[in-house]
């Protein structure tokens, strides 16, 4: 069962601030959800269910359906990419020149890598 300390750690990993009041409510909710999810332990998936198949979805007689096939990464011609980038950058809360602006990365006691 999830405890207060674990929740604080998870919230930190997920980069989410929680107030003390929210923490109590969340512990309760997450406990109830995990109780429900725990019934998975009783499930006994049979047949071809136990392997990961990320390249193709092959299900018995069904034909193979390609998934996760990536398109070619072609650079766009002319200034199209730059224009596109500019449009996307315009959605940023703070920018400086052609860059997203963020607070200092070094000297941050929590972050940095």
């Amino acid at each position, binding site marked *: 069962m999830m405890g207060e300390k674990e929740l604080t750690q998870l919230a930190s990993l997920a980069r989410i601030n929680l107030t003390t009041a929210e923490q109590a409510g969340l512990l309760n909710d997450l406990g109830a959800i995990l109780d429900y999810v725990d019934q*998975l332990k009783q*499930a006994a998936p049979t047949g071809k269910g136990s392997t990961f198949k990320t390249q193709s979805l092959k299900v018995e007689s069904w034909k193979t359906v390609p998934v996760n096939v990536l398109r070619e990464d072609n650079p766009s011609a002319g200034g199209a990419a730059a224009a596109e980038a500019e449009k996307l950058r315009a959605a940023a809360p703070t920018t400086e020149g052609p860059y997203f602006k963020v*607070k200092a990365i070094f000297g941050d006691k929590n972050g940095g890598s």
Partner: protein
Amino acid sequence: MAVRDFSQLTIARWLEGLARGAWRASELVEYYLKQIEKINPGLNAYLEVFDDALTAAEAIDRRLASGEPLRALEGVPIAVKDNILIKGRRASAGSKMLENYTAAYDATVIAKLRAAGAVFLGRTNMDEFAMGASTENSAFGPTKNPHDPERVAGGSSGGSAAALAAGLALAALGSDTGGSVRQPAAFCGVLGLKPTYGAVSRFGLIALAPSFDQIGPLARTADDVERIFEVIKGRDENDSTSLSEKVRPLISKVSRSNLEKFKKFKLGVPRRFLDQGLNRAGAENFSVATASLAAAGYEIMDIDLPTAPYALAAYYVIMPAEASSNLARYDGIRYGSYFPGQDLFDDYRTTRGNGFGLEVRRRVILGTYALSAGYYDAYYAKAFAVKQAIASEFAAAFNQVDAILTPTTPAPAFKLGERLADPVQMYLEDLFTVPANLAGLPAISIPSGRAASGLPFGLQIMAPPGGEGRLFQIAKHYANL
């Protein structure tokens, strides 16, 4: 001039009238704008009505006047869920995080609809980031059910379903990750389709759980749903999981020719699975539905989907896991809302703490938990195995039957606020809809009678991958029984 009543309009009738000059595209948009102005304030189905809808309709009128041929959805006014991008328009996904976000490009479905002549009326309310079954998780207030304003419209595509049920659009788009098109369609008494996974491009859809998400149409007749689906489907270079018609398998022993013959269809009912979640009224309604299909000549038989009872539990591991990594992009740096903190790390936490509502935070933390070291095998790996087993069981079932029937929801629309305090009760709304998402199957919810209270029930039909055509056939037939 008397104002025409378009409340019983279908797309076929609209196009037919447009072709013979009985009405103009701007007339229909004006009609809906007036209805929206009158009815929407009490429902909160639309978050925004587009100021250029009429201009777009007028352009269509000019186009037709100059002799251009009619396109597939010429002048059809469509409501669009708030998580589908329309260039130059806001798309907030029902969240404070994207409250002021303006789309820089069109979603593929939007580009296709536009090219087919559709007109976008506005964007509809939804549970934040499509997380919910009541539209109560919207940062912009709940949507009310047109059949009873004290009840929810369902979710997460509640705004689209309510807009249709109230006669505020001719068709609508929603998105379905675990039932978000079908469940609100059922609650509001309209039709909603969750296509085969990969049938419709997800490019430009704000993601919740990409391995389940599909955009789907809502409308008031099966023919209308089919017409929208035919326009939006197809392989898209911008969505690597979209499928071309060629590789979309339609597995079945049923050949195309006898697909036309409804009476040869065998319909399966996963009886043991249903017994778990249905209340009495729901069970009675469902048995009336199956009896009328049987009377019409369909063969109804019980089937077994032994792992289906675990579908919802598996879904509540895989979906939050995907959501937690997906929503990592909302960091207050590249786009969306920004709430400053003490330092960079605190910027992230403050932005996400303030920008995300409670349910979103709950699922992101749940997903982080399920993916964390030590829990991964117990949760994610197990859930994935269950998902695969369910897909296998459906495949086996479709060797016996042509389609599978369940109620769409265990019961009709519940009261506003009734389930907010208990997330698991809210999640159980998706008990019958989630299996189709896990297995990637197409599924449709169609209106199927009413409860004593007058609230609509929905009947869900599921088909093998690529079997949308079969769903439309049965749905059309059922509407005439």
